[in-house]
Protein backbone atom coordinates (compact mmCIF):
# COMPACT_ATOMS: atom_id res chain seq x y z
CA UNK A 1 0.00 0.00 0.00
CA UNK A 2 1.51 3.30 -1.08
CA UNK A 3 1.63 5.75 1.85
CA UNK A 4 1.35 8.85 -0.34
CA UNK A 5 -0.99 7.82 -3.16
CA UNK A 6 -4.62 6.93 -3.60
CA UNK A 7 -4.79 3.43 -5.04
CA UNK A 8 -7.57 1.47 -6.67
CA UNK A 9 -6.77 -2.15 -7.48
CA UNK A 10 -9.18 -3.88 -9.79
CA UNK A 11 -12.13 -2.21 -8.06
CA UNK A 12 -15.68 -2.92 -9.19
CA UNK A 13 -18.90 -1.75 -7.64
CA UNK A 14 -22.32 -3.09 -8.49
CA UNK A 15 -25.66 -1.78 -7.25
CA UNK A 16 -27.52 -5.04 -7.48
CA UNK A 17 -27.48 -5.74 -11.19
CA UNK A 18 -26.41 -2.23 -12.11
CA UNK A 19 -22.75 -1.50 -12.71
CA UNK A 20 -21.27 1.47 -10.83
CA UNK A 21 -17.62 1.18 -11.79
CA UNK A 22 -15.83 -1.73 -13.39
CA UNK A 23 -12.29 -3.05 -12.83
CA UNK A 24 -10.80 0.30 -11.95
CA UNK A 25 -7.05 0.49 -11.51
CA UNK A 26 -5.85 3.93 -10.49
CA UNK A 27 -2.97 5.62 -8.78
CA UNK A 28 -3.51 9.27 -7.85
CA UNK A 29 -0.55 11.36 -6.71
CA UNK A 30 -0.66 14.73 -4.95
CA UNK A 31 -1.69 17.88 -6.84
CA UNK A 32 -4.93 18.88 -8.47
CA UNK A 33 -6.57 16.03 -10.33
CA UNK A 34 -9.72 16.40 -12.38
CA UNK A 35 -12.20 13.55 -12.54
CA UNK A 36 -14.15 13.93 -15.73
CA UNK A 37 -17.15 12.13 -17.12
CA UNK A 38 -20.77 12.67 -18.08
CA UNK A 39 -23.57 12.39 -15.52
CA UNK A 40 -23.95 8.77 -14.48
CA UNK A 41 -20.47 7.77 -15.64
CA UNK A 42 -19.36 6.69 -12.15
CA UNK A 43 -17.58 9.79 -10.81
CA UNK A 44 -19.51 9.95 -7.54
CA UNK A 45 -19.26 6.18 -7.10
CA UNK A 46 -15.48 6.43 -7.46
CA UNK A 47 -15.38 9.24 -4.87
CA UNK A 48 -17.68 7.36 -2.49
CA UNK A 49 -15.40 4.32 -2.80
CA UNK A 50 -12.38 6.50 -2.05
CA UNK A 51 -14.00 7.73 1.17
CA UNK A 52 -15.64 4.52 2.36
CA UNK A 53 -19.22 5.73 1.84
CA UNK A 54 -19.45 2.75 -0.51
CA UNK A 55 -17.65 -0.60 -0.25
CA UNK A 56 -16.22 -2.18 -3.38
CA UNK A 57 -17.97 -5.31 -4.59
CA UNK A 58 -14.54 -6.46 -5.73
CA UNK A 59 -10.99 -5.17 -5.45
CA UNK A 60 -9.22 -2.97 -2.96
CA UNK A 61 -8.98 0.76 -2.25
CA UNK A 62 -6.20 2.39 -0.26
CA UNK A 63 -5.87 6.07 0.59
CA UNK A 64 -2.40 7.10 1.78
CA UNK A 65 -1.94 3.48 2.85
CA UNK A 66 -5.22 3.49 4.85
CA UNK A 67 -8.18 1.32 4.01
CA UNK A 68 -11.51 3.19 3.90
CA UNK A 69 -12.69 0.49 6.35
CA UNK A 70 -10.92 2.51 9.05
CA UNK A 71 -12.78 5.83 9.13
CA UNK A 72 -11.19 6.79 12.46
CA UNK A 73 -7.81 7.05 10.66
CA UNK A 74 -8.99 7.92 7.17
CA UNK A 75 -10.95 11.07 7.99
CA UNK A 76 -8.09 12.66 9.89
CA UNK A 77 -6.50 12.90 6.43
CA UNK A 78 -9.45 13.13 4.07
CA UNK A 79 -12.17 15.72 3.58
CA UNK A 80 -15.05 15.03 1.22
CA UNK A 81 -17.45 17.54 -0.27
CA UNK A 82 -20.28 15.40 -1.62
CA UNK A 83 -22.88 16.32 -4.20
CA UNK A 84 -25.73 15.92 -1.68
CA UNK A 85 -27.41 19.22 -0.97
CA UNK A 86 -28.94 18.24 2.38
CA UNK A 87 -27.90 19.33 5.84
CA UNK A 88 -28.85 18.39 9.39
CA UNK A 89 -32.14 20.11 10.22
CA UNK A 90 -31.87 23.45 11.97
CA UNK A 91 -28.08 23.82 11.55
CA UNK A 92 -26.46 27.21 11.11
CA UNK A 93 -23.22 27.44 9.15
CA UNK A 94 -21.25 27.80 12.37
CA UNK A 95 -23.01 25.03 14.34
CA UNK A 96 -22.65 22.67 11.36
CA UNK A 97 -18.87 23.11 11.38
CA UNK A 98 -18.62 23.10 15.18
CA UNK A 99 -20.40 19.75 15.28
CA UNK A 100 -18.13 18.31 12.58
CA UNK A 101 -15.02 19.50 14.42
CA UNK A 102 -16.30 18.24 17.77
CA UNK A 103 -16.71 14.84 16.12
CA UNK A 104 -13.03 15.07 15.17
CA UNK A 105 -12.36 15.28 18.91
CA UNK A 106 -11.37 18.96 19.04
CA UNK A 107 -12.06 20.83 22.25
CA UNK A 108 -14.62 23.62 22.01
CA UNK A 109 -12.15 26.51 21.84
CA UNK A 110 -10.12 24.89 19.06
CA UNK A 111 -13.26 23.76 17.24
CA UNK A 112 -14.57 27.34 17.32
CA UNK A 113 -11.29 28.73 16.05
CA UNK A 114 -11.14 26.25 13.17
CA UNK A 115 -14.80 26.74 12.30
CA UNK A 116 -14.39 30.53 12.02
CA UNK A 117 -11.19 30.10 9.97
CA UNK A 118 -12.94 27.73 7.55
CA UNK A 119 -15.92 30.08 7.26
CA UNK A 120 -13.57 32.97 6.49
CA UNK A 121 -11.76 30.95 3.84
CA UNK A 122 -14.99 30.34 1.93
CA UNK A 123 -16.33 33.86 2.54
CA UNK A 124 -19.22 32.95 4.83
CA UNK A 125 -18.24 34.79 8.03
CA UNK A 126 -21.22 37.13 7.82
CA UNK A 127 -23.67 34.26 7.33
CA UNK A 128 -22.16 32.08 10.08
CA UNK A 129 -25.14 32.31 12.42
CA UNK A 130 -27.81 32.01 9.75
CA UNK A 131 -29.61 28.72 9.18
CA UNK A 132 -28.21 26.75 6.24
CA UNK A 133 -31.79 26.12 5.09
CA UNK A 134 -31.91 29.84 4.19
CA UNK A 135 -28.61 29.81 2.26
CA UNK A 136 -28.47 30.21 -1.51
CA UNK A 137 -27.22 27.28 -3.60
CA UNK A 138 -23.79 28.91 -3.87
CA UNK A 139 -23.59 29.46 -0.10
CA UNK A 140 -24.53 25.83 0.55
CA UNK A 141 -21.78 24.78 -1.82
CA UNK A 142 -19.32 26.95 0.12
CA UNK A 143 -20.36 25.59 3.51
CA UNK A 144 -19.85 22.06 2.20
CA UNK A 145 -16.36 23.07 1.07
CA UNK A 146 -15.70 24.56 4.50
CA UNK A 147 -16.89 21.29 6.06
CA UNK A 148 -14.55 19.30 3.84
CA UNK A 149 -11.42 21.27 4.70
CA UNK A 150 -12.05 22.64 8.22
CA UNK A 151 -9.91 19.89 9.80
CA UNK A 152 -7.00 20.62 7.46
CA UNK A 153 -6.99 17.29 5.58
CA UNK A 154 -4.19 16.07 3.33
CA UNK A 155 -6.68 14.90 0.72
CA UNK A 156 -9.70 16.83 -0.48
CA UNK A 157 -12.27 15.00 -2.55
CA UNK A 158 -14.69 17.45 -4.14
CA UNK A 159 -17.71 16.23 -6.09
CA UNK A 160 -18.87 18.90 -8.55
CA UNK A 161 -17.78 21.66 -6.14
CA UNK A 162 -18.42 24.53 -8.54
CA UNK A 163 -22.08 23.70 -9.14
CA UNK A 164 -24.32 26.60 -8.25
CA UNK A 165 -21.54 29.15 -7.83
CA UNK A 166 -21.62 32.42 -9.72
CA UNK A 167 -18.60 33.31 -11.93
CA UNK A 168 -16.96 35.30 -9.15
CA UNK A 169 -17.52 32.46 -6.70
CA UNK A 170 -16.12 29.95 -9.17
CA UNK A 171 -12.98 32.01 -9.66
CA UNK A 172 -12.52 32.29 -5.88
CA UNK A 173 -13.02 28.58 -5.36
CA UNK A 174 -10.67 27.67 -8.20
CA UNK A 175 -8.04 29.88 -6.54
CA UNK A 176 -8.71 28.09 -3.26
CA UNK A 177 -8.29 24.62 -4.85
CA UNK A 178 -5.08 25.71 -6.54
CA UNK A 179 -3.79 27.14 -3.27
CA UNK A 180 -4.63 23.93 -1.39
CA UNK A 181 -2.92 21.81 -4.05
CA UNK A 182 0.18 24.01 -3.93
CA UNK A 183 0.37 23.32 -0.21
CA UNK A 184 1.14 19.70 -1.21
CA UNK A 185 -2.33 18.22 -0.81
CA UNK A 186 -4.22 15.86 -3.08
CA UNK A 187 -7.20 17.77 -4.44
CA UNK A 188 -9.51 15.63 -6.54
CA UNK A 189 -12.24 17.58 -8.30
CA UNK A 190 -14.99 15.99 -10.32
CA UNK A 191 -16.87 17.83 -12.99
CA UNK A 192 -18.90 17.19 -16.08
CA UNK A 193 -17.94 20.64 -17.32
CA UNK A 194 -14.73 20.06 -19.20
CA UNK A 195 -13.33 23.55 -19.51
CA UNK A 196 -13.56 23.90 -15.72
CA UNK A 197 -11.31 20.87 -15.27
CA UNK A 198 -9.00 22.15 -18.00
CA UNK A 199 -8.45 25.36 -16.08
CA UNK A 200 -7.77 23.83 -12.70
CA UNK A 201 -6.24 20.36 -13.08
CA UNK A 202 -2.66 19.16 -13.22
CA UNK A 203 -3.81 15.70 -14.18
CA UNK A 204 -7.03 14.16 -15.32
CA UNK A 205 -8.94 10.93 -14.88
CA UNK A 206 -11.56 10.26 -17.53
CA UNK A 207 -14.39 7.92 -16.75
CA UNK A 208 -17.16 6.66 -18.97
CA UNK A 209 -19.74 3.94 -18.36
CA UNK A 210 -18.03 3.00 -15.10
CA UNK A 211 -14.63 2.42 -16.72
CA UNK A 212 -11.51 4.59 -16.64
CA UNK A 213 -10.77 5.54 -20.24
CA UNK A 214 -7.64 7.61 -19.58
CA UNK A 215 -5.56 9.06 -16.76
CA UNK A 216 -2.50 11.25 -16.50
CA UNK A 217 -1.45 14.72 -17.59
CA UNK A 218 -3.65 15.91 -20.40
CA UNK A 219 -0.71 16.35 -22.80
CA UNK A 220 0.47 12.80 -22.17
CA UNK A 221 -3.00 11.43 -22.69
CA UNK A 222 -3.39 13.39 -25.90
CA UNK A 223 -0.01 12.17 -27.13
CA UNK A 224 -1.13 8.58 -26.77
CA UNK A 225 -4.17 9.04 -28.99
CA UNK A 226 -2.63 8.16 -32.35
CA UNK A 227 -5.92 7.72 -34.14
CA UNK A 228 -6.47 11.48 -34.31
CA UNK A 229 -3.82 13.83 -35.78
CA UNK A 230 -2.50 16.43 -33.35
CA UNK A 231 -3.72 19.94 -34.08
CA UNK A 232 -1.50 23.00 -33.79
CA UNK A 233 -2.62 26.60 -34.15
CA UNK A 234 -0.02 28.97 -35.61
CA UNK A 235 -0.42 32.74 -35.52
CA UNK A 236 1.94 34.39 -37.99
CA UNK A 237 2.05 37.19 -40.58
CA UNK A 238 2.01 34.90 -43.69
CA UNK A 239 -0.05 31.77 -42.93
CA UNK A 240 -0.50 30.82 -46.62
CA UNK A 241 3.27 30.68 -47.15
CA UNK A 242 3.72 28.44 -44.13
CA UNK A 243 0.80 26.21 -45.23
CA UNK A 244 2.27 25.64 -48.69
CA UNK A 245 5.63 24.62 -47.19
CA UNK A 246 3.99 22.36 -44.62
CA UNK A 247 2.17 20.38 -47.33
CA UNK A 248 5.59 19.13 -48.46
CA UNK A 249 5.74 17.10 -45.24
CA UNK A 250 4.27 13.58 -45.38
CA UNK A 251 2.66 13.56 -41.96
CA UNK A 252 0.68 16.77 -42.48
CA UNK A 253 -2.99 15.83 -42.79
CA UNK A 254 -4.45 19.30 -42.98
CA UNK A 255 -3.34 22.96 -42.96
CA UNK A 256 -6.22 25.38 -42.96
CA UNK A 257 -6.28 29.15 -42.51
CA UNK A 258 -8.99 30.02 -39.97
CA UNK A 259 -10.08 33.61 -40.14
CA UNK A 260 -9.12 35.72 -37.11
CA UNK A 261 -7.45 32.71 -35.46
CA UNK A 262 -4.49 31.61 -37.59
CA UNK A 263 -3.23 28.54 -39.37
CA UNK A 264 -4.67 25.28 -38.05
CA UNK A 265 -2.36 22.35 -38.81
CA UNK A 266 -3.11 18.65 -38.29
CA UNK A 267 -0.13 16.32 -38.11
CA UNK A 268 0.49 12.66 -37.33
CA UNK A 269 4.07 13.29 -36.18
CA UNK A 270 4.26 16.21 -33.79
CA UNK A 271 8.01 16.04 -32.96
CA UNK A 272 8.96 16.01 -36.64
CA UNK A 273 6.49 18.79 -37.33
CA UNK A 274 8.08 21.08 -34.72
CA UNK A 275 11.58 20.32 -36.06
CA UNK A 276 10.63 21.08 -39.64
CA UNK A 277 8.50 24.06 -38.69
CA UNK A 278 11.56 25.76 -37.16
CA UNK A 279 13.40 25.25 -40.45
CA UNK A 280 10.47 26.72 -42.41
CA UNK A 281 10.38 29.80 -40.20
CA UNK A 282 14.11 30.39 -40.69
CA UNK A 283 13.93 29.79 -44.48
CA UNK A 284 10.87 31.97 -45.13
CA UNK A 285 11.49 34.70 -42.55
CA UNK A 286 7.87 34.48 -41.37
CA UNK A 287 7.14 36.40 -38.19
CA UNK A 288 5.50 33.97 -35.74
CA UNK A 289 3.35 35.30 -32.92
CA UNK A 290 2.34 32.01 -31.22
CA UNK A 291 2.43 28.27 -31.79
CA UNK A 292 0.04 26.43 -29.51
CA UNK A 293 -1.57 23.00 -29.35
CA UNK A 294 -5.21 23.30 -30.43
CA UNK A 295 -6.57 20.03 -29.10
CA UNK A 296 -4.61 19.40 -25.93
CA UNK A 297 -7.73 20.16 -23.96
CA UNK A 298 -9.77 17.83 -21.81
CA UNK A 299 -12.70 18.44 -24.11
CA UNK A 300 -10.86 17.40 -27.26
CA UNK A 301 -9.27 14.38 -25.63
CA UNK A 302 -12.59 13.29 -24.17
CA UNK A 303 -14.24 13.65 -27.57
CA UNK A 304 -11.54 11.56 -29.23
CA UNK A 305 -11.71 8.82 -26.61
CA UNK A 306 -15.43 8.62 -26.09
CA UNK A 307 -16.62 10.00 -29.40
CA UNK A 308 -19.44 12.03 -27.91
CA UNK A 309 -19.96 15.26 -26.05
CA UNK A 310 -20.56 15.48 -22.35
CA UNK A 311 -23.91 17.09 -22.51
CA UNK A 312 -23.07 19.46 -19.69
CA UNK A 313 -21.64 22.02 -22.08
CA UNK A 314 -19.52 24.78 -20.75
CA UNK A 315 -21.66 26.52 -18.18
Amino acid at each position, binding site marked *: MSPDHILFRNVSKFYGEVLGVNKVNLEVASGLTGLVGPNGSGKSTLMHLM*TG*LLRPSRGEVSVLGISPDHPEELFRKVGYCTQYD*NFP*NGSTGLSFLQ*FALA*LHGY*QKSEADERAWAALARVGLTDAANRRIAGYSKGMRQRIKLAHAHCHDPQILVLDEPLNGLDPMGRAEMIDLFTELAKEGRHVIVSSHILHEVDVISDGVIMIHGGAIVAEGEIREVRGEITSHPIQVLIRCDRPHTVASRLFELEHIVEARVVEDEGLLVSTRDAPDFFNKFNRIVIDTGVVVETVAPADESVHAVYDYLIGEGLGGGSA
Partner: protein
Amino acid sequence: MTNSKPLVQRRQVLTLARHEVGRSLFSRRSLAVYLLVGMPLALMLLRALFMPGSMRADATHATTEFAEVFHFFLLRFVVFFANAMIFVRLFRGEILEKSLHYTLLAPLSRTVLVIGKYLGGVVSASLILVLTTTLTYILVFLPHGAAGVQLLLSGSGIANLASYLLIVVLACFAYGALFMLAGLFFKNPMVPAILFLGWETLTPFLPAFLKVLSFVHYLVSFAPVPVSLGAFALLARPVSWWIALLALFTTSALLVFVASRVARHLEVTYSAD
Protein backbone atom coordinates in the same frame (compact mmCIF):
# COMPACT_ATOMS: atom_id res chain seq x y z
CA MET B 1 -4.51 17.88 18.80
CA THR B 2 -2.43 15.46 20.88
CA ASN B 3 -5.14 13.78 22.95
CA SER B 4 -5.17 10.08 23.69
CA LYS B 5 -7.49 7.82 21.71
CA PRO B 6 -9.83 6.97 24.63
CA LEU B 7 -10.19 10.67 25.47
CA VAL B 8 -11.03 11.54 21.87
CA GLN B 9 -13.50 8.64 21.68
CA ARG B 10 -15.18 9.78 24.89
CA ARG B 11 -15.54 13.28 23.47
CA GLN B 12 -16.95 11.84 20.24
CA VAL B 13 -19.50 9.74 22.11
CA LEU B 14 -20.58 12.75 24.19
CA THR B 15 -20.80 14.97 21.09
CA LEU B 16 -22.98 12.43 19.30
CA ALA B 17 -25.15 11.85 22.36
CA ARG B 18 -25.67 15.59 22.89
CA HIS B 19 -26.52 16.02 19.22
CA GLU B 20 -29.07 13.20 19.35
CA VAL B 21 -30.66 14.60 22.52
CA GLY B 22 -31.09 17.94 20.73
CA ARG B 23 -32.58 16.24 17.67
CA SER B 24 -34.89 14.00 19.69
CA LEU B 25 -36.18 16.69 22.03
CA PHE B 26 -36.33 19.81 19.90
CA SER B 27 -36.74 18.87 16.22
CA ARG B 28 -40.00 19.17 14.36
CA ARG B 29 -40.25 15.39 14.16
CA SER B 30 -40.35 15.18 17.97
CA LEU B 31 -43.90 16.47 17.77
CA ALA B 32 -45.23 12.93 17.11
CA VAL B 33 -43.51 11.67 20.27
CA TYR B 34 -44.93 14.55 22.31
CA LEU B 35 -48.42 13.85 20.97
CA LEU B 36 -48.02 10.21 21.96
CA VAL B 37 -46.82 10.93 25.51
CA GLY B 38 -49.55 13.56 25.80
CA MET B 39 -52.20 10.81 25.48
CA PRO B 40 -51.95 9.33 29.02
CA LEU B 41 -51.74 12.85 30.45
CA ALA B 42 -54.85 13.91 28.56
CA LEU B 43 -56.68 10.76 29.67
CA MET B 44 -55.76 11.31 33.30
CA LEU B 45 -56.85 14.96 33.06
CA LEU B 46 -60.22 13.89 31.65
CA ARG B 47 -60.52 11.28 34.41
CA ALA B 48 -59.81 13.96 37.01
CA LEU B 49 -62.37 16.30 35.48
CA PHE B 50 -65.20 13.79 35.16
CA MET B 51 -64.54 11.63 38.22
CA PRO B 52 -67.74 11.12 40.28
CA GLY B 53 -67.71 12.62 43.76
CA SER B 54 -68.04 9.21 45.45
CA MET B 55 -64.80 8.03 43.82
CA ARG B 56 -62.97 11.23 44.72
CA ALA B 57 -63.45 10.57 48.38
CA ASP B 58 -61.83 7.11 48.17
CA ALA B 59 -58.10 7.21 47.35
CA THR B 60 -57.40 3.58 48.13
CA HIS B 61 -58.00 2.44 44.53
CA ALA B 62 -55.56 4.96 43.04
CA THR B 63 -52.54 2.70 43.47
CA THR B 64 -54.19 -0.20 41.62
CA GLU B 65 -55.63 2.11 38.98
CA PHE B 66 -52.18 3.50 38.15
CA ALA B 67 -50.74 -0.05 38.10
CA GLU B 68 -53.31 -1.00 35.43
CA VAL B 69 -52.75 2.18 33.43
CA PHE B 70 -49.02 1.59 33.59
CA HIS B 71 -49.13 -2.08 32.53
CA PHE B 72 -51.69 -1.88 29.78
CA PHE B 73 -51.24 1.59 28.38
CA LEU B 74 -48.02 3.31 29.45
CA LEU B 75 -45.57 0.42 29.20
CA ARG B 76 -47.12 -1.62 26.40
CA PHE B 77 -48.14 1.29 24.20
CA VAL B 78 -46.68 4.71 25.08
CA VAL B 79 -43.20 3.62 26.21
CA PHE B 80 -43.01 1.05 23.43
CA PHE B 81 -43.94 3.39 20.58
CA ALA B 82 -42.07 6.42 21.95
CA ASN B 83 -38.92 4.29 21.98
CA ALA B 84 -39.71 3.03 18.49
CA MET B 85 -40.08 6.60 17.18
CA ILE B 86 -36.94 7.92 18.87
CA PHE B 87 -34.55 5.03 18.21
CA VAL B 88 -35.63 4.09 14.71
CA ARG B 89 -34.84 7.68 13.68
CA LEU B 90 -31.27 7.57 14.98
CA PHE B 91 -30.07 6.13 11.67
CA ARG B 92 -33.16 5.84 9.48
CA GLY B 93 -34.10 9.48 10.14
CA GLU B 94 -30.72 10.72 8.95
CA ILE B 95 -30.89 8.44 5.92
CA LEU B 96 -34.29 9.92 5.02
CA GLU B 97 -32.97 13.45 5.63
CA LYS B 98 -29.94 12.53 3.46
CA SER B 99 -27.59 13.89 6.08
CA LEU B 100 -26.09 10.69 7.50
CA HIS B 101 -22.95 11.07 5.37
CA TYR B 102 -21.77 14.04 7.44
CA THR B 103 -21.47 11.77 10.48
CA LEU B 104 -19.94 8.97 8.44
CA LEU B 105 -17.28 11.38 7.14
CA ALA B 106 -15.97 12.01 10.66
CA PRO B 107 -12.93 10.17 12.01
CA LEU B 108 -14.83 7.91 14.35
CA SER B 109 -15.25 4.18 14.38
CA ARG B 110 -18.70 2.86 13.60
CA THR B 111 -18.80 1.38 17.13
CA VAL B 112 -18.32 4.86 18.63
CA LEU B 113 -20.98 6.16 16.26
CA VAL B 114 -23.52 3.53 17.36
CA ILE B 115 -22.75 3.94 21.08
CA GLY B 116 -22.97 7.75 20.90
CA LYS B 117 -26.29 7.70 19.08
CA TYR B 118 -27.67 4.98 21.35
CA LEU B 119 -26.78 6.86 24.53
CA GLY B 120 -28.31 10.03 23.10
CA GLY B 121 -31.49 8.07 22.38
CA VAL B 122 -31.55 6.54 25.88
CA VAL B 123 -31.14 9.96 27.53
CA SER B 124 -33.85 11.56 25.35
CA ALA B 125 -36.35 8.72 25.69
CA SER B 126 -35.73 8.44 29.43
CA LEU B 127 -36.19 12.18 29.95
CA ILE B 128 -39.47 12.27 28.06
CA LEU B 129 -40.90 9.05 29.47
CA VAL B 130 -39.80 9.55 33.07
CA LEU B 131 -41.49 12.94 33.02
CA THR B 132 -44.63 11.48 31.42
CA THR B 133 -44.83 8.62 33.91
CA THR B 134 -44.29 10.95 36.88
CA LEU B 135 -46.98 13.38 35.70
CA THR B 136 -49.42 10.55 34.97
CA TYR B 137 -48.76 9.13 38.43
CA ILE B 138 -49.42 12.49 40.06
CA LEU B 139 -52.57 12.99 38.01
CA VAL B 140 -53.95 9.66 39.21
CA PHE B 141 -53.62 10.69 42.86
CA LEU B 142 -54.40 14.42 42.72
CA PRO B 143 -58.19 14.22 42.14
CA HIS B 144 -58.50 12.45 45.48
CA GLY B 145 -57.57 15.63 47.31
CA ALA B 146 -55.64 15.59 50.56
CA ALA B 147 -55.95 11.80 50.94
CA GLY B 148 -54.50 11.31 47.47
CA VAL B 149 -51.62 13.67 48.11
CA GLN B 150 -50.89 11.94 51.39
CA LEU B 151 -50.83 8.55 49.66
CA LEU B 152 -48.63 9.95 46.90
CA LEU B 153 -46.09 11.37 49.30
CA SER B 154 -46.11 8.38 51.64
CA GLY B 155 -43.17 5.99 51.70
CA SER B 156 -44.90 3.43 49.47
CA GLY B 157 -46.17 6.11 47.08
CA ILE B 158 -42.68 7.39 46.37
CA ALA B 159 -41.16 3.88 46.34
CA ASN B 160 -43.79 2.70 43.85
CA LEU B 161 -43.08 5.67 41.60
CA ALA B 162 -39.35 4.94 41.75
CA SER B 163 -40.00 1.33 40.68
CA TYR B 164 -42.16 2.45 37.75
CA LEU B 165 -39.49 4.93 36.68
CA LEU B 166 -36.85 2.18 36.86
CA ILE B 167 -38.99 0.06 34.56
CA VAL B 168 -39.33 2.97 32.13
CA VAL B 169 -35.57 3.61 32.04
CA LEU B 170 -34.80 -0.10 31.61
CA ALA B 171 -37.38 -0.23 28.82
CA CYS B 172 -35.57 2.65 27.10
CA PHE B 173 -32.30 0.69 27.20
CA ALA B 174 -33.86 -2.54 25.93
CA TYR B 175 -36.42 -1.35 23.38
CA GLY B 176 -33.99 1.37 22.33
CA ALA B 177 -31.30 -1.13 21.38
CA LEU B 178 -33.82 -3.23 19.48
CA PHE B 179 -35.33 -0.32 17.55
CA MET B 180 -31.96 1.20 16.71
CA LEU B 181 -30.97 -2.12 15.15
CA ALA B 182 -34.32 -2.27 13.33
CA GLY B 183 -33.62 1.22 11.95
CA LEU B 184 -30.37 -0.05 10.50
CA PHE B 185 -31.88 -3.20 9.02
CA PHE B 186 -35.28 -2.23 7.69
CA LYS B 187 -36.41 0.51 5.34
CA ASN B 188 -39.71 0.67 7.20
CA PRO B 189 -38.91 -0.41 10.76
CA MET B 190 -42.44 0.30 12.01
CA VAL B 191 -43.64 -2.99 10.49
CA PRO B 192 -41.28 -5.17 12.59
CA ALA B 193 -42.01 -2.86 15.56
CA ILE B 194 -45.74 -3.61 15.34
CA LEU B 195 -45.00 -7.34 15.01
CA PHE B 196 -42.82 -7.14 18.11
CA LEU B 197 -45.58 -5.28 19.95
CA GLY B 198 -47.86 -8.20 19.09
CA TRP B 199 -45.32 -10.58 20.60
CA GLU B 200 -44.94 -8.45 23.74
CA THR B 201 -48.73 -8.26 24.12
CA LEU B 202 -49.05 -12.03 23.82
CA THR B 203 -46.39 -12.64 26.47
CA PRO B 204 -48.84 -13.25 29.37
CA PHE B 205 -50.50 -16.02 27.35
CA LEU B 206 -47.27 -17.75 26.33
CA PRO B 207 -45.68 -20.70 28.09
CA ALA B 208 -42.78 -19.92 30.45
CA PHE B 209 -40.04 -20.95 27.97
CA LEU B 210 -41.33 -18.40 25.44
CA LYS B 211 -41.97 -15.63 27.96
CA VAL B 212 -38.20 -15.31 28.46
CA LEU B 213 -37.93 -14.12 24.85
CA SER B 214 -39.76 -10.89 25.58
CA PHE B 215 -38.61 -7.71 27.30
CA VAL B 216 -41.88 -7.08 29.07
CA HIS B 217 -41.50 -10.35 31.00
CA TYR B 218 -38.37 -8.98 32.70
CA LEU B 219 -39.60 -5.40 32.97
CA VAL B 220 -42.77 -6.27 34.90
CA SER B 221 -40.71 -8.15 37.47
CA PHE B 222 -39.86 -4.70 38.90
CA ALA B 223 -43.52 -3.68 39.11
CA PRO B 224 -44.43 -2.80 42.69
CA VAL B 225 -48.15 -3.59 42.35
CA PRO B 226 -49.29 -6.79 40.60
CA VAL B 227 -52.13 -6.59 38.10
CA SER B 228 -54.53 -9.22 36.88
CA LEU B 229 -53.71 -10.27 33.31
CA GLY B 230 -57.02 -12.02 32.74
CA ALA B 231 -58.35 -15.53 32.92
CA PHE B 232 -56.29 -16.86 30.02
CA ALA B 233 -52.91 -15.68 31.24
CA LEU B 234 -50.38 -18.44 31.92
CA LEU B 235 -48.63 -17.78 35.20
CA ALA B 236 -44.88 -18.25 35.42
CA ARG B 237 -42.49 -18.04 38.31
CA PRO B 238 -41.50 -14.36 38.74
CA VAL B 239 -37.99 -13.45 37.68
CA SER B 240 -35.69 -12.19 40.42
CA TRP B 241 -34.59 -8.55 40.01
CA TRP B 242 -30.95 -9.37 39.34
CA ILE B 243 -31.77 -11.91 36.65
CA ALA B 244 -34.11 -9.39 35.08
CA LEU B 245 -31.41 -6.69 35.18
CA LEU B 246 -28.81 -9.06 33.78
CA ALA B 247 -31.13 -10.25 31.00
CA LEU B 248 -32.13 -6.72 29.99
CA PHE B 249 -28.63 -5.27 30.04
CA THR B 250 -27.02 -8.30 28.36
CA THR B 251 -29.62 -8.31 25.60
CA SER B 252 -29.31 -4.54 25.12
CA ALA B 253 -25.49 -4.77 24.95
CA LEU B 254 -25.75 -7.64 22.48
CA LEU B 255 -28.17 -5.70 20.27
CA VAL B 256 -25.91 -2.61 20.37
CA PHE B 257 -22.95 -4.82 19.45
CA VAL B 258 -24.86 -6.29 16.49
CA ALA B 259 -25.88 -2.75 15.46
CA SER B 260 -22.23 -1.67 15.48
CA ARG B 261 -21.35 -4.64 13.25
CA VAL B 262 -24.18 -3.75 10.86
CA ALA B 263 -23.08 -0.10 10.90
CA ARG B 264 -19.60 -1.14 9.75
CA HIS B 265 -21.12 -2.15 6.44
CA LEU B 266 -23.38 0.88 6.19
CA GLU B 267 -23.19 2.53 2.77
CA VAL B 268 -24.53 5.85 1.57
CA THR B 269 -26.99 5.07 -1.23
CA TYR B 270 -29.78 7.54 -0.50
CA SER B 271 -31.51 6.96 -3.82
CA ALA B 272 -32.00 3.29 -2.91
CA ASP B 273 -33.37 4.17 0.55
